């Protein structure tokens, strides 16, 4: 390895007021020009690690710090965060809070200004870095008018303008739609080609990290695995056990090869284990080399079963007729939306950041009223029912639980809604118990909701809405900000609620969640309903999806290359036939 640019020597850290250390004895060196990805479940210490690199720890956060962090020869103990800023650029997950200027170019200028860079040089750096991330045409625009993906690109440009040796990104794509995500990773890919920049990215998403040189897994503050990307990503059992999402393609091949070995075949042609494929194209080649084929008959059965299970007939529960919404500012957020949602369904609304999907969802419980057209819930216009009455029928869980939690105990929080509806205390208690056990928080009644983790607070928010016993539950990005394990258990809970009779509508960026949990999908693009159908029908149309800034997971892309749309590795395993022995 080349000389290390980042050296973490026996780094341990504990936040003030907590008992458990956030990081324990981390020993890690990152070479110049390297691209390292740090992965791990929530609370594993990933963000803490990122904050150590530029000195936010120990200077900004107070706590118990031991060991050393040396970046480019500078020990963070001896340099303030501002001084380190020239060496280390840090991009945060929250793209709203990290931008503070009134125009794109001034945002980029802010860093160099602080370091006394002369004006002509600042102008040059603005030009260079905006071009680098593809935002030149937005130079004069206020950052607040940019989309989420563009804001994150701007954050990257404004950090690069300080010419750092190291760029650290803390979950830069968590809140972004799939194509914007891809855009950010294209930038990291370009940066990787540059010798002068060392990249360290904290990520949850597995598909995007394939291009990393090395991957590190953190768990409970400890570095438990470090190695070349493809090697580490093969360890599917380890990933599942620590709550990381394993990749569909390698999982499929590992299982398929194992099955074949069991039935007497060798792992591949020639007897030696071939290289495990990761990308859809690689997978297609491997699939063809294996001589496998997919049974048309079994696939047809799969599709038939799925279509029969659909509940979209009879009397719709919610119906949008020619729904349009124009905000008072004159921005047209929705235009001419016609859709129907039936009792007992579980449907997903997807689309780019700012496509109007949240605006659409807010119409379904009367938070927003159509400026044209009509929304009918149980046959009656929302306009006549109002949000107070509709709230009992249609519950809405907002994206950020911190936008609604205010009580001192979990019990009080969940009891808020039933109490507002003047139920007697016995009934309130019964409902709170029922709601808390539905979200898996029974026994937490006396806890302070603010002391829970993000996923815990998310569950409190869901319980608080469930306590009103709505027939329909709308969830706005229920899985954002959670790790894979938490996402799964959140969605399993949602599915259970659906099986108990709730109609579920969720808005999401996570395509795998759509593939696994939705029965039908609505794709919104520029305020219009762009596509609708079962996940299988929708994900089959990759080209159209791309125009809506969406992209199915790698595994589905791979199956599309084989002219069948498979949502899960297991489906493909069931349809598999043939193979060279």
């Amino acid at each position, binding site marked *: 390895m080349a000389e290390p640019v980042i050296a973490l020597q026996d780094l341990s850290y504990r936040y003030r007021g907590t008992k458990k250390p956030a990081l324990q004895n981390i020993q890690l060196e990152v070479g110049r020009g390297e691209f390292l990805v740090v992965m791990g479940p929530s609370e594993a210490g990933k963000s803490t690690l990122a904050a150590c690199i530029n000195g936010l720890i120990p200077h900004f956060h107070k706590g118990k710090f031991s060991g050393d962090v040396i970046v480019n020869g500078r020990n963070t103990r001896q340099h303030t965060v501002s001084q380190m800023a*020239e060496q280390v650029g840090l991009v945060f997950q929250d793209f709203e809070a990290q931008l503070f*200027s009134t125009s794109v170019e001034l945002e980029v200028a802010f860093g160099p200004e602080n370091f006394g860079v002369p004006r002509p040089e600042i102008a040059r750096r603005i030009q260079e870095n905006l071009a680098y991330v593809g935002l030149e045409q937005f130079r004069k625009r206020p950052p607040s008018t940019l989309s989420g993906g563009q804001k994150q690109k701007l954050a990257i440009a404004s950090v690069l303008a300080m010419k750092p040796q190291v760029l650290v990104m803390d979950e830069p794509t968590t809140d972004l739609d799939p194509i914007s995500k891809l855009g950010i990773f294209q930038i990291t890919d370009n940066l990787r080609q540059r010798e002068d920049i060392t990249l360290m990215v904290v990520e949850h998403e597995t598909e995007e990290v394939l291009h990393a040189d090395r991957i590190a897994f953190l768990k409970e503050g400890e570095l438990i695995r470090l190695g070349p990307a493809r090697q580490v990503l093969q360890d599917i059992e380890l990933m599942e056990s620590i709550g990381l999402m394993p990749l569909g393609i390698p999982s499929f091949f590992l299982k398929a090869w194992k099955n074949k070995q069991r039935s007497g075949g060798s792992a591949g042609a020639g007897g030696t284990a071939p290289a495990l494929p990761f990308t859809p194209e690689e997978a297609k080649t491997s699939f063809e080399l294996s001589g496998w084929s997919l049974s048309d008959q079994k696939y047809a059965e799969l599709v038939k079963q799925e279509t029969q299970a659909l509940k979209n007939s009879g009397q719709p529960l919610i119906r949008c007729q020619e729904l349009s919404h124009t905000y008072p500012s004159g921005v047209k957020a929705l235009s001419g939306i016609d859709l129907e949602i039936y009792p007992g369904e579980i449907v997903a609304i997807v689309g780019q950041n700012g496509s109007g999907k949240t605006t659409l969802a807010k119409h379904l419980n009367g938070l927003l009223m159509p400026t044209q057209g009509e929304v009918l819930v149980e046959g009656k216009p929302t306009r006549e029912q109002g949000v107070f009455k509709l709230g009992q029928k249609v519950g809405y869980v907002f994206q950020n639980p911190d936008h*609604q939690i205010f009580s001192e105990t979990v019990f009080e929080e969940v009891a808020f809604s039933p109490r507002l509806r003047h139920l007697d205390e016995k009934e309130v208690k019964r409902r709170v118990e029922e709601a808390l056990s539905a979200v898996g928080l029974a026994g937490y009644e006396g806890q302070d909701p603010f002391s829970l983790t993000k996923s815990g607070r998310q569950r409190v928010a869901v319980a608080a809405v469930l306590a009103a016993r709505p027939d329909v539950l709308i969830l706005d990005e229920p899985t954002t900000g959670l790790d894979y394990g938490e996402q799964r258990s959140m969605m399993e809970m949602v599915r259970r609620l659906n099986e108990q009779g709730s109609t579920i509508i969720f808005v999401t960026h996570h395509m795998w969640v759509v593939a696994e949990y939705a029965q039908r999908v609505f794709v919104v693009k520029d305020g219009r309903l762009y596509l609708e159908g079962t996940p299988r029908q929708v994900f089959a149309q990759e080209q159209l999806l791309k125009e809506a800034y969406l992209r199915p997971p790698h595994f589905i892309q791979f199956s599309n290359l084989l002219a069948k749309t498979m949502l899960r590795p297991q489906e493909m395993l069931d349809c598999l036939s043939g193979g060279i022995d």
Partner: protein
Amino acid sequence: MDAEIYLDYNTFIHRLDPRTKLLVFLIIFIAVLQFENPLWLLPCVALVFLQLVIAKAWPNLRRIRFVLLVLTISSLVIWNFFANGATPLFWFIEVESLQYSVSRTLLMLTIITMGMIMVSTTRNEELVMGMIRLGLPYRVGFAISTSLRLVPTIAANTLIISQAQRSRGLNLESGNFIERIRKFIPLLIPVFISTIRSTNIFGMALESRGFGAREDRTTYLEIKMGKADYAVLLFGLLLVVISIYLNIAGYGNLTGLRRF
């Protein structure tokens, strides 16, 4: 939704140097302070109104119309407690104290409008630069402009939070006064917490971008005083001198008014 106060137009007022705008703000403030009689305030009020029209800052004033209404009504009442007059009107209000209330209310509205014109026509960064050039330390100027920037962010957060609580069944429009106040708790706590959280990230982002790394900070923006600036300042200076002169000469007061 719309989190910007700055209105991106290219009006005469927009083109003025931020220093000019800050000084004009000060000048109008001093000028309107000179008079107790609302009639004598009218020229200044008209001037501010003219600026508002030129700057096309109407929409921003409209956004705070409810706040303005509440402030106007309470100010019209409250100033009566601080002044007495010779001619009783009704209850505790006299003709003179009412006139005085009107002029104090006009003063308040003028200042708010001037402030709104300034932030609607001046970018945050320009404002900071203007303040620094007028002698304020960089950190102080930055702090002032940052608190201005927080206002729309908090407003946007409050909107989402009130939607969240309303969909849980909170009805802010019903109940008596005490009940209504209590109903704000579910709004205030999340607003407070989310604001603290985002200012915390803001602080980290600021430091991570090298805020205050060196004393010799450069600026990419350039501000320059032009002919128009000097003309406006000269006019302002005349205005303030005349106002002070008139006050000393005894014009613009309310006879029979006693202030406490």
